[in-house]
């Protein structure tokens, strides 16, 4: 199990080697048990060849005068590792579908009937990087993909705390708190031999109003997905348009 992506400066080789009994110097706020819980979750997600997740989410936005507004959303993920996904993100009245079948990346707005399609790299991870770097697209809860990729680079945390027992939607979980760059986040990981994330909260610390993203996750770790499910098939009245490319 590699810790590289989650390694904290000063966390040291002791933890990397799995003997985390002593808290390393220089990282007094990092509880190795919290780090290990995330590692265990990542390792488990890495064993899944396919999964379906439904995220019921709330995104907070802050108005100029500091008033916070919550936007409700539902995002569904159908994933075939390492090279397929269909994601539908619906936030308020805005719906977008994202398709990746190992060859093409497609974005589709059902309401408009517009889709844009670009050639895609060979893996989900690379496709997400390209979507972000080149097209400015960041999918909600992209973490699900990064976490399930062994060796994927994560942002180092500066604080990691075990909060312990919590029940999310009737499921027994452990709650953990993390702090990194300008974000605080909490994760509720299911207890037992399927350590999947059940809830996530991410807080932006750069704004005084501390807007938060909250997502509750419903999982199917044995979905029945056909190979054709990941390929976008435009209906008769769908129209192809350009996707603005930052690299050009």
């Amino acid at each position, binding site marked *: 199990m590699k810790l590289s992506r989650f390694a904290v400066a000063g966390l040291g080789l002791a933890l990397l080697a799995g003997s985390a009994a002593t808290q390393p110097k220089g990282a007094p706020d990092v509880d190795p048990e919290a780090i290990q819980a995330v590692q265990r979750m990542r390792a488990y997600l890495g064993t899944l060849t396919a999964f379906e997740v439904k995220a019921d989410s709330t*995104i907070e936005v802050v108005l100029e005068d500091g008033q916070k507004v919550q936007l409700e959303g539902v995002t569904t993920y159908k994933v075939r590792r390492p090279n397929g996904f269909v994601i539908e993100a619906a936030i308020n009245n805005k719906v977008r579908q994202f398709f990746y079948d190992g060859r093409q990346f497609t974005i589709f707005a059902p309401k*408009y009937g517009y889709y844009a399609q670009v050639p895609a790299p060979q893996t989900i991870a690379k496709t997400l990087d390209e979507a972000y770097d080149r097209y*400015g697209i*960041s999918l909600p809860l992209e*973490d699900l993909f990064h976490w399930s990729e062994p060796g994927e680079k*994560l942002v180092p945390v500066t604080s990691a705390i075990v909060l312990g027992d919590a029940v999310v939607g009737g499921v027994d979980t452990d709650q953990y708190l993390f702090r990194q760059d300008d*974000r605080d986040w909490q994760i509720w990981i299911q207890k037992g031999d399927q350590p999947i994330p059940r809830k996530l909260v991410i807080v*932006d610390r750069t704004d005084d109003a501390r807007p938060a993203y909250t997502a509750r996750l419903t999982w199917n770790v044995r979905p029945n997905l056909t190979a054709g499910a990941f390929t976008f098939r435009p209906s008769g009245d769908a129209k192809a*348009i350009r996707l603005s490319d930052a690299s050009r």
Partner: protein
Amino acid sequence: MTLRHARLAALLAAAATVALPPTLAEAARGAGRVRASAPTNVSRPAARPNNISGRTQNTAVANRSGARANNSGNRINNGDVNIGNRTNINIDNDHRWHDWDDDYHPVARGVAFGAAAAVTSAVVGSMIYSLPPACAPRPYGGTSYYYCGNVWYAPQYQADQVVYVVVNPPG
């Protein structure tokens, strides 16, 4: 004062100097300016070199004809209306409702309307979030275009957002 009222009031105050289409008042939805929104992942670094907002801004700056002088949050007074022939149909670069709402803010529509009505040309490459009223589809060579007010628009995705870019007449 409710949020909706506040937004509407701000809008209407801002609207005082320009002639607005009647649809604006009823479409106050989403018009408040957003200063921040929660991040939806922890895997990407906070600093976003290719932040789409930055890119959009650059595009707009590049195409800007010098008419826009707005940072007050008052998008109606973007300077893009009533400025004769030097109109730059403007994309709003502030933190954005349209990130989250397909109905967009009506301000852009108002600006576009004013611009299209007031001028004879729009800067190629500039963008709007929604088309002026009565902008008809005019497909050409298998590509989607819209044509109105003597301006051709091509829809495109700017990240996950559909925008309409002013283009040269096709053909």
